[in-house]
């Protein structure tokens, strides 16, 4: 599934040597196979963009393996790069972006409030994992009417994603509401999303062969500033509506208010601005480079924050924060349930089981591998014999 939605692009490799970023090649590594593997970036929607950024000398990869001696090489100070926003959260500084700002311009286009958002709350690997997509007419219109403009020296449109009308509910108070909507005793404490069936059906992913792929259930997605989660339930769109002023809007996504995640402003403020724009209000472009202006913009927006009345099955259930959030999807996971062999060959599992005084592992049957091992050893001895035979043949030819 995932392989057709993504393609490999080659990105220029560099290494960080004494606080300087220096270009490297395969000859700097003992294992050239691992080196080449590191320079291949697997990407979807932004694959060509990634390639362009690499060609322009803005985006680089740092191979995982340590290079051989790089002393004496000249480079660019590492402080001129953003090594976090486009790297994996598991391995910061695995991707470097040359920039004059504390965060990459890509991150600022994805989240114009990036400079006032917690440093670890970035686009990260969603930049690569977002597949190409096609939206139905209603979602295209929603996106066109709500996309924000960003100032980074000049005016840009925010990085594309899938827009959805989102209500933010308090995860500690929403249990009954969530059960009414989903028919399951779910909790938003796990940071999952509830999505409308019609919204998700309006999104189709596109493979590099032009085929359309429906969105699986569940699917992993992320709002602004790494507010990631999976879709934990779907609901019929006509059951859940939100009334903003005198306008009744369908609800596409229900998510929690991101209270503890330090990305509340990025999610709620940007969503509010998009909704204001969608409702025909005048929304000035966001100057993503000026920290003071960003702070005052957050303050202003929160003053004028739209709330709406949530309507479920025709009944008004209470006031909620409402906005139009932007989402990125990750199709690199096979999210479907499946029967699989538990990987317990790790030494750590045995150690932990012993520490807990668990007899659990003893319950599971041992497979009899004697026959398989015997066959392997016979094969090895035949290979050894063959090797000697060929040696004799070679000697005879000399």
């Amino acid at each position: 599934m995932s392989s057709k939605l993504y393609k490999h692009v080659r990105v220029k490799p560099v290494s960080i040597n004494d606080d300087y970023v220096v270009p490297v090649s395969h000859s700097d590594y003992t294992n050239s196979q691992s080196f080449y593997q590191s320079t291949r970036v697997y990407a979807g929607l932004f694959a060509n963009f990634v390639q362009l950024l690499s060609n322009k000398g803005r985006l680089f990869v740092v191979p995982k393996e340590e290079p051989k001696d790089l002393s004496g090489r000249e480079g660019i100070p590492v402080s001129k790069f953003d090594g976090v926003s486009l790297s994996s959260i598991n391995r910061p500084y695995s991707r470097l972006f040359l920039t004059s700002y504390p965060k990459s311009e890509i991150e600022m286009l994805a989240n114009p409030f990036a400079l006032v958002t917690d440093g670890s709350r970035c686009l990260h690997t969603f930049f690569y994992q977002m597949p190409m997509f096609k939206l139905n007419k209603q979602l295209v219109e929603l996106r066109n009417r709500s996309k924000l403009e960003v100032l980074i020296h000049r005016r840009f449109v925010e990085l594309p994603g899938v827009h959805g009308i989102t209500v933010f509910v308090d995860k500690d108070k929403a249990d009954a509401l969530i059960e009414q909507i989903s028919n399951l005793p779910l909790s938003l404490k796990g940071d999952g999303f509830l999505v409308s069936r019609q919204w998700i059906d309006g999104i189709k992913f596109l493979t590099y062969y032009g085929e359309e792929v429906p969105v699986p259930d569940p699917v992993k997605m992320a709002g602004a500033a790494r507010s990631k989660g999976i879709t934990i339930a779907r609901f019929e769109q006509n059951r859940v509506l939100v009334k903003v002023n005198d306008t009744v809007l369908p609800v596409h996504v229900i998510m929690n208010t991101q209270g503890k995640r330090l990305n509340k402003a990025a999610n709620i403020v940007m969503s509010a601005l998009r909704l204001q724009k969608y409702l025909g209000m005048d929304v000035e472009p966001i100057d993503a480079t000026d920290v003071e202006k960003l702070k005052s913009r957050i303050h202003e927006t929160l003053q004028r924050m739209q709330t709406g009345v949530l309507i479920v099955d025709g009944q008004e259930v209470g006031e909620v924060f409402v906005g139009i959030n932007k989402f990125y999807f990750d199709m690199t996971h096979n999210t479907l349930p499946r029967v699989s062999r538990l990987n317990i060959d790790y030494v750590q599992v045995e150690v932990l089981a012993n520490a807990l005084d668990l007899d659990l592992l003893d319950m599971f049957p041992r497979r009899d591998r004697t026959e398989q091992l015997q066959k392997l050893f016979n094969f090895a001895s035949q290979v050894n014999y063959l090797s000697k035979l060929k040696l004799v043949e070679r000697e005879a030819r000399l």
Partner: protein
Amino acid sequence: MTYRDKFYRLNHLKNKYPQYSQYWNACEIVLLNTDSEAGIATLNESQANEVSKVSTLPIVGTQNPVELSVTPDMLVWKLDDMGYDLEIELEDVYSVTALFVEVMKANLAQAFIELTPFDVERKRGLEVYSKILNELAATIVQFAAKVYASEREILGLRAKHMTMREDVNDILVPPEYASLFDKYPVLKTIVVVDGNKGFTAGNVDAAKSVLERMGIKVDRVIKVSIDRIKKELSGSGTFVNVIIRHPIIGYIAYGTSRIRQEIHGIGVNAKIANLLDGDDDGDFVEVTPIAFLKDKDAHFVGVF
């Protein structure tokens, strides 16, 4: 060696040793899907299935080719095992084992020896061939060590973690859970509890000890056949499972399960989810049935 060289040699082998046609087809799939620089073959599911059909790995070139009968796990493996290293999870992408690659290399080297008309090149080819056979011998030893290490077989249902309300005293599982009960490792492991007796087709002492830790009291555990276990499972009752969040970290909880048609992940009580350090941002959870409480309704979840 260029692609053209490889396919020229492969074609020669196909014609000369037609009895291994399934194997040569598999080699062709692998060669076609091998990255020319990184040297790693990446296969999709149908290609991996095709390669898995090979039952014998031959080394040709002698009057009686050397043969190794193989199982699918000796031929292909899933790339998602190294997803963390690649920083993405590549589900449904497969590759072939080092054993397959080394045998294929040996055969291609043999084809070179057979095809070259020049004596000097043939001698060079023999040198390369001997080197490949040595590498193959080392690979077989490594493979044998791996076979020896992976002797336990534990099956579970793997699905996305979904957080439930704190008052939910069951692990909610999707309908796919039912398919576990046709599988040998599950039937061999599960303990059927009927009143104050337990029945198992596996290790009696271990079964007794694990039941005790889960707070399920039985007077004795009796060893029975797998068929008997299968029959007992067809009746009514409640399944008790272990739930494992991450095999490396090894967080383990346990509890009764309920199948829910509407759910597509594994629903875990919020308090237990907290202890398991799991949330709904893409974490996987595995559920493995341990006991079946016959004609007994129970609701509980806990951690060891």
